[in-house]
């Protein structure tokens, strides 16, 4: 492009000795890198390193490497900063990106260590003894009243509806529209098999997935896309999305190009128009207003649990307290390092606080107010492994949410180009020739494999800790130690430093 100063980030090389000209790379690349004249050619500037071509080349003839082009070293002006300026000088606008904060912020999970039993309080072998990962999301009563005598006892307290999870792990909200219907299908099938839930995100629920209603949380966000009484009834709970980790405080714009016929009928908006989600819910300007919507949803659904999803921001503890007092059953905390959503880079990378810290202060705040039992906490936005999950639960989460990890299981390479709609793996696209590549049953099996693997690991960790239920780990910060964190952060996390 004339005047374009950007150089290719990656170099694509086709080994013509190996290439047998099958053109599979041309068919597979969603970004139009390859062409064929008398031999296969590659336009490296279009490559996003999604590896689709590499994986599907039968001859292993394709290699993708980082462009080794040297830039003059400058510790203040790393290459990405220079590139951002070239982009904005060329075509004005906010730099759009996706798939989570990629700046090297401190990762608190990597500075927390889990305890284990030795000699006294013997550890438990999960291979021989039952280990319970089941948990329940929702309001727990302040106390239980049991009446009766001589073995004929009856629970007198009316317990609010809870969601039963066989594993303390849910799939995070990603809307149909941002991801393909096959992605939603895979998540729904896997959630059913695993005894957990997937979350619709804010784009409504395709009619075909209504049968999975026992394993779905339906979302009601500021755009109210696809929200109607039947939809609200089509899940085990309703989630009010106030904020998300990928873009705390701002709305969303799903471009018209991704509004195909099926997305249009699910979101109930005209085909090809942009789907604009306002930054706030315009019927929620206060905790009282939030309470009003929570109870409007409860009235509409026969008092199903209501979750409120927020991004973790500076005053998250006070906000969470308000949400609990507004009548929410679940608080979904979305950390600033996570999130899959398309977002301006400036917001994705610099707005919010880490999940780990938010989780600790929210749990502490709710406990100190004596209202921790009124809400369950789902921690999401930066859960990368079963270790992160265990640490999040020890910091105070009832369950964790995974979005990015689930997409990686489906083949995502974190190329961060979801907003283009060109996803070669069929995940974040509405182009039928691309989305058709993701077989929902194959995807579901991979998701089930991932969660089962993490479950095995969680059981081992619990056994090592000498407990036999995940609920015994929840909020048990005595079983965590910090390493390499400053004293103040350690104090805020309310964990002891290693050695104490």
């Amino acid at each position, binding site marked *: 492009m004339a005047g374009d100063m950007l150089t290719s980030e990656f170099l694509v090389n086709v080994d013509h000795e190996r290439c047998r000209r099958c053109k599979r790379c041309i068919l597979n690349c969603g970004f139009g890198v390859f062409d064929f004249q008398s031999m296969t050619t590659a336009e490296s500037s279009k490559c996003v390193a999604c590896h689709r071509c590499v994986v599907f080349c039968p001859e292993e003839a394709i290699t993708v490497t980082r462009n080794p082009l040297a830039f003059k070293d400058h510790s203040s002006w790393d290459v990405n900063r220079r590139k951002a300026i070239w982009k*904005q000088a060329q075509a004005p606008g*906010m730099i*759009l990106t996706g798939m989570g904060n990629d700046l090297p912020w401190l990762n608190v999970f990597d500075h927390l260590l889990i305890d284990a039993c030795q000699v006294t309080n013997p550890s438990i072998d999960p291979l021989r003894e039952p280990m319970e990962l089941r948990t329940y999301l929702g309001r727990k009563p302040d106390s239980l009243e049991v009446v009766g005598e001589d073995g004929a006892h009856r629970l007198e307290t009316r317990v609010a509806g809870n969601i039963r999870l066989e594993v303390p792990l849910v799939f995070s909200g990603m809307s149909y529209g941002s991801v393909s219907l096959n992605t939603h299908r895979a998540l729904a099938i896997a959630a059913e098999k695993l005894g957990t839930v997937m979350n619709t995100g804010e784009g409504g629920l395709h009619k075909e997935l209504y049968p999975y209603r026992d394993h779905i949380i339906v979302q009601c966000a500021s755009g109210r896309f696809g929200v109607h*009484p039947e939809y609200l009834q089509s899940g085990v709970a309703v989630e009010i999305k106030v904020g998300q980790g990928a873009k705390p405080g701002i709305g969303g714009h799903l471009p018209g190009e991704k509004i195909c016929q099926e997305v249009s009928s699910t979101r109930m*908006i005209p085909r090809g128009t942009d789907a*604009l989600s306002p930054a706030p819910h315009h019927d929620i300007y206060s905790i009282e207003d939030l309470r009003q919507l929570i109870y*409007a949803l409860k009235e*509409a659904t026969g008092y199903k649990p209501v979750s409120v999803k927020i991004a973790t921001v500076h005053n998250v503890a006070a906000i969470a307290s308000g949400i609990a007092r507004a009548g929410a059953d679940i608080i979904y905390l979305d950390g600033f390092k996570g999130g899959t959503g398309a977002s301006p880079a400036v917001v994705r990378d610099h707005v919010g606080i880490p999940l780990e810290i938010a989780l600790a202060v929210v749990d502490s705040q709710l406990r100190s107010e004596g209202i921790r039992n009124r809400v369950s906490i789902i921690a999401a936005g930066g859960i990368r492994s079963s270790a992160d999950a265990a640490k999040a639960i020890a910091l105070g989460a009832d369950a964790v949410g995974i979005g990015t990890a689930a997409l990686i299981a489906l083949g995502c390479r974190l190329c961060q180009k979801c907003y283009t709609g060109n996803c070669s793996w069929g995940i974040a696209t509405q182009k039928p020739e691309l989305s058709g590549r993701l077989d929902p049953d194959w995807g579901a099996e991979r998701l089930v494999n991932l969660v089962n693997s993490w479950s095995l690991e969680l059981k081992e960790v619990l056994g090592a800790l000498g407990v036999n239920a995940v609920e015994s780990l929840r909020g048990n910060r005595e079983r965590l130690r910090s390493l390499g964190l400053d004293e103040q952060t350690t104090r805020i996390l309310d964990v002891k430093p290693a050695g104490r």
Partner: protein
Amino acid sequence: MAIDERIVDATGVYYRELNENVRRMVADGAGKILLNGVNGQRYIADGLRGDLEIVVNGVPGNDLAVFMDGPTVIVNDNAQDGVGNTMNRGKVVVRGSAGDVIGYGMRGGKVFVAGDIGYRAGIHMKSFNDQVPVIVAGGRAGDFLGEYIAGGVLVLLGLNGDGEAPLVGGYVGTGMHGGTIYLRGEFDDSQLGEEVRRFELDDDDRGLLSELLEEFAADTGCDVSQVSVEEFKKLQPSSHRPYGNLYTY
């Protein structure tokens, strides 16, 4: 067959009990429900579906007809905030004035308010296929009328004014990317959002306004004889993709 009509005394009844009672009657086949003595009970007709009529005598509380999908609700008094919030189908007629956030995210049906409406009315209304939401208010409106509107029709008649209070506040149609706003009365371009343009009325507009005026007058009992369709100014978005150029990649 005669309509199955029920009468409920709502005096002092907590909203949850009242609404449960209404839902039970609807499930039981009620075609018309009269709620007497209503005084601030929230969520009346919340998520209700089907073909029935609810008459509210008294002032209903917030979120009247929220998520409603079909019924007709008639209020013989004022209504509060959130009337027709995220409503899918049906009709709400308020024979007095209504509060803020009327018809937020509304996707279908009609809200007719005889008097004034407050701030943030018709935000993010949207249409889909045969579902075209309509809000008509006989009086005036506050700021942010039709902000982010993506579809549907908002009409302000400007009746009953004292000649001093403005027809509408500021930021009309900010972020507008669909739908139509018809205003009758004086306003300045400085009150409009950047995405809004004035357009001349065409025959389709005249036809639509005539029909709506007739229906509005019949439902609310307002006298619209002095209203001529030619007096309306029509506002539509300058673009259906106002934020298409926000980003670079």
